[in-house]
């Protein structure tokens, strides 16, 4: 058996190495990402348990202690309240950061900060907003950054407010300043956890007055969303890579069998069975797979930790623990890969059965199927080179189709990655469900609001403004936030029905629709902030920007004062001046774009780096594969090329014909990839981001990007095919005739 393997496989060393390499890369990527991703979830959950973080957080913007009212609820086990202030602060780079400042951070045991010093969430360090020793002001009070801590509760880049811890004395000083927004967080542990954040406190009467209620499922999702997106993109690339590996395997096997026909026929005349020949191939190819898998397993010990640290940082956390390799993951990935490999190998070995021992006497030549092309050499008016190239292409369509499919996969993958990258550029706010307005203004009533708007307009012209009156309704025991916008944002994508037109109309998110088993046209009875029993009709459903949104739009509670106003400025250069001048007293201006800018930047940067790495990898692997396919195609065509040389074709003519054939395959591959991208590209991408916790990515890759990717791969492939075609000049007629 060893001799058979040696004899059959020795000539295919390059392919064996390539298969091992591709298996290694795809297995390493999969093992690393899955291990790091799982570690991210499990370590986060452990940290959450270790710090005894609450099941539910309730935030209210007042200074009345809500502990007593929460404790009375049936599902509540314990409550700890944390009073503080919410403030917009400016760092040294004039960037605004929204902070919730208090003197305790749940159960984390931090050394009490010194007077007028603050310990911040570590995300603010990793995104470069602050460093130790930085000074900033809250009102007139100067605070110095004393250190950072990993905040597993509100430290995720996805949360609007980051926590800052000060001493009791400092907090009191801050609270006593005029115009500070007093807030409190209540950390609640419940008896029974449910998936609906609001339903866990279903008998909480003041739910309609709370600002936010997060449960731990929501919080944990926020901490795992970004790594999930990143992991899915990489897993997609790894799957492509393994797909390529399977292609290489099939291609190598088919070409190898064709090349070794005579040898195989000779073995058969000597009494060696089909099974024995098959086994020789299976063993050698699986051997290559195994080498790749073992190497990947070993290297993944190191890379898993590396990627886990990257994921941890995406979460705004720094203290990553060591990640051990997960044997189950390794085994599952190995088994999946081996299973596919075995299937492909067995499928590709079918031609062995049809090799008759008589082939040994006929120089091993396979019975070539005559071209079914109607393009005749004697009748066509096209140049001889093109007609011949086309006929040869048709004859070796199996080889060239592999080339075509691989090119199309590479282009498709590149286009998807570029689209994803483009999707995150400038769209991160949308994707993450963050507002895209310059300033949010909170005011207690309409007269203060109107006055403030007028004042702001005198400093910087306002491009547009509107209101977003947020209220809540109690619908089927669930407190649902309801927005009443002066104009419903264009990002809202209606799935069915229409937008609210009447005071009793309600447009609800698709996730809420599913959770509460509602339907369009259905009439529901609700409690609002102003009316105890109101009848509303569900008139439509919309796609939420992220899966976390269980909200609605309606025209209810119009008597309530407009408390939230969104402002878009004509010129944003004076934004900081506005914040300093007008954000005090009854008016609170929040620079929403600045508070999310760092998050946006970090997400974009992560996706961009990732996209570039994958693109580079795609570029390298595609180049390698194109070379291999070219090399082997020339190898299998050597006899025919020698024959053509004998007939008087020059090397240049033969190379031109080969380039034309590769050109056909390349063109077909690009057309195929464009079709794939058009018909399944955006669906796949949307499914991908949806799996990552997002539901929207309405982005079209600009034509220039499409052209860039295609031009790049055409250039690369042409160059490599041109280099590979130099082998044609080395073919000696005498060796083959």
């Amino acid at each position, binding site marked *: 058996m060893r001799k058979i393997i040696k004899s059959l496989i020795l000539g295919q060393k390059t392919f064996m190495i390539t298969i091992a390499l591709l298996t290694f890369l795809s297995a390493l990527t999969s093992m690393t990402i899955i291990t790091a991703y799982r570690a991210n979830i499990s370590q986060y959950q452990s940290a959450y348990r270790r710090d005894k973080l609450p099941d539910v957080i309730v935030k209210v913007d007042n200074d009345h202690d809500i502990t007593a009212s929460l404790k009375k609820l049936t599902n509540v086990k314990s409550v700890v309240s944390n009073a503080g202030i919410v403030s917009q602060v400016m760092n040294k780079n004039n960037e605004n950061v929204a902070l919730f400042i208090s003197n305790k951070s749940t159960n984390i045991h931090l050394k009490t900060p010194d007077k007028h010093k603050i310990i911040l969430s570590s995300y603010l360090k990793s995104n470069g907003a602050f460093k130790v020793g930085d000074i900033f002001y809250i009102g007139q009070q100067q605070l110095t950054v004393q250190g950072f801590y990993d905040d597993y509760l509100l430290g995720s880049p996805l949360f609007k407010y980051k926590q800052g811890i000060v001493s009791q004395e400092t907090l009191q000083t801050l609270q006593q300043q005029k115009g500070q927004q007093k807030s409190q967080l209540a950390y609640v542990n419940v008896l029974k956890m449910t998936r609906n954040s609001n339903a866990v406190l279903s008998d909480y009467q003041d739910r309609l007055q709370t600002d936010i209620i997060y449960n731990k499922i929501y919080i944990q999702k926020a901490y795992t969303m970004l790594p999930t997106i990143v992991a899915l993109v990489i897993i997609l690339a790894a799957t492509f890579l393994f797909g390529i590996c399977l292609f290489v395997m099939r291609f190598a096997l088919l070409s190898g069998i064709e090349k070794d026909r005579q040898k195989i026929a000779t073995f058969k005349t000597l009494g060696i069975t089909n099974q024995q020949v098959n086994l020789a191939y299976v063993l050698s190819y699986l051997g290559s797979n195994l080498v790749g898998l073992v190497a990947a397993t070993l290297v993944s010990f190191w890379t898993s930790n590396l990627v886990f640290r990257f994921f941890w940082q995406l979460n705004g956390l720094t203290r990553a623990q060591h990640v051990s390799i997960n044997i189950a993951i390794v085994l599952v990935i190995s088994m999946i890969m081996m299973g596919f490999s075995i299937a492909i190998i067995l499928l590709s070995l079918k031609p062995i059965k049809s090799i008759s021992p008589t082939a040994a006497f006929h120089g091993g030549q396979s019975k070539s199927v*005559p071209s079914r092309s109607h393009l005749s*050499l*004697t009748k066509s008016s096209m140049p001889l080179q093109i007609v011949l190239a086309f006929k040869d292409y048709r004859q070796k369509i199996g080889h060239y189709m592999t080339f075509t499919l691989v090119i199309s996969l590479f282009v498709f993958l590149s286009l998807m990655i570029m689209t994803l990258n483009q999707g995150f550029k400038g769209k991160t706010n949308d994707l993450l469900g963050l507002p895209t307005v310059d300033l949010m203004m909170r005011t207690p009533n309409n007269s203060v609001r109107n006055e403030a708007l007028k004042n702001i307009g005198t400093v910087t012209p306002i491009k547009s403004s509107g209101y977003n009156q947020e209220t809540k309704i109690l619908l089927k025991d669930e407190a649902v936030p309801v927005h009443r916008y002066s104009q419903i944002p264009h990002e809202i994508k209606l799935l069915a029905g229409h937008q609210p037109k009447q005071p009793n109309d309600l447009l609800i998110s698709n996730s809420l629709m599913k959770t509460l088993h509602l339907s369009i046209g259905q009439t529901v009875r609700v409690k609002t902030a102003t009316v105890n029993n109101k009848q509303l009709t569900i008139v439509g459903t919309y796609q939420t920007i992220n899966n976390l949104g269980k909200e609605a739009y309606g025209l209810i509670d119009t008597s309530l004062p407009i408390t939230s106003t969104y402002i878009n400025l004509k010129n944003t250069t004076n934004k900081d001046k506005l914040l300093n001048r007008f954000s005090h007293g009854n008016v609170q201006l929040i620079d929403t774009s600045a508070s999310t800018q760092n998050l946006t930047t970090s997400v974009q940067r992560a996706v961009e780096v990732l996209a570039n790495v994958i693109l580079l990898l795609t570029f390298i692997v595609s180049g390698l594969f194109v070379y291999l396919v070219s090399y082997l195609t020339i190898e299998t065509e050597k006899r025919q090329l020698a024959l053509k040389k004998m007939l008087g074709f020059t090397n240049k003519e033969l190379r031109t014909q080969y380039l034309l054939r590769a050109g056909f395959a390349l063109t077909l591959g690009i057309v195929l990839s464009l079709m794939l991208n058009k018909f399944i590209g955006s669906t796949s991408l949307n499914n991908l981001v949806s799996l990552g916790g997002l539901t929207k990515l309405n982005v079209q890759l600009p034509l220039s990007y499409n052209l860039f990717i295609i031009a790049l791969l055409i250039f690369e492939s042409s160059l490599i095919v041109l280099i590979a075609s130099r082998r044609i000049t080395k073919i000696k007629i005498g060796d083959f005739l």
Partner: protein
Amino acid sequence: MPNNSIITVQQLSKHYDNHKILENVDIDIFESDFTVIMGPSGAGKSTLLQNISTMDKPTNGKVLFNQQDLTQFTDKKLSQFRKKEIGFIFQSFNLIDHLSVLENVCLPGFLLHSKSKQQVVKRARQLLTSLRLSDQIDQAITHLSGGQKQRVAIARSLINQPKLLFADEPTGALDSTAGTEVLDSLTLNNQNGQTIVMVTHDLKAALRADRILFIKDGKIFGDRKFSPYDFDQIETRRIEITSWLEEMGW
């Protein structure tokens, strides 16, 4: 008067690694001769044919054609020489399987560009008809018998009316009848003035020669002229050639 030399081989040697296949071979191939190269297996017959027909490059020595050394030709000049001056017939036919009979024959004609497409196709049809292949013109190569394939190969080698025709065991893969048909075609071409150089170990094929080169251990061991082939004198010829070949150690 001997004919003019069409190919002159000077001090031709061919080595594979350290193994010497041909060693300092000097021969002339004369115009309109039917030269047969014979010798024991492994003597270097096919290697010699390949080296003088530019299918391979000698390790040392010269192959002169019209006073020009073919071993020094560039790729372009070599392909021009192959297209225009020579035809080649092989034991294993070496036809292009995915082209039809007519396309196979026309291909070298199209490549030479000396005639229009229609002229090439017309000549190819004439050649195929003369070789009794008119019914197979549009057939795929894979549907032909061995004898038919070899006749297609002959038609292909003649399409550009080359001065020289090289044949390497052209009857080796054929039965007796098909072999005779092929040899008849070659003889006819030779009688029409074409120079033929053929490697064979088949006595029947050797009978067609008017000159036999006997090669042994990479060297020309014997070189003898015979009278031109005449079917009526076949038995006398067989005895003459056989006895000479036996002298050579055949």
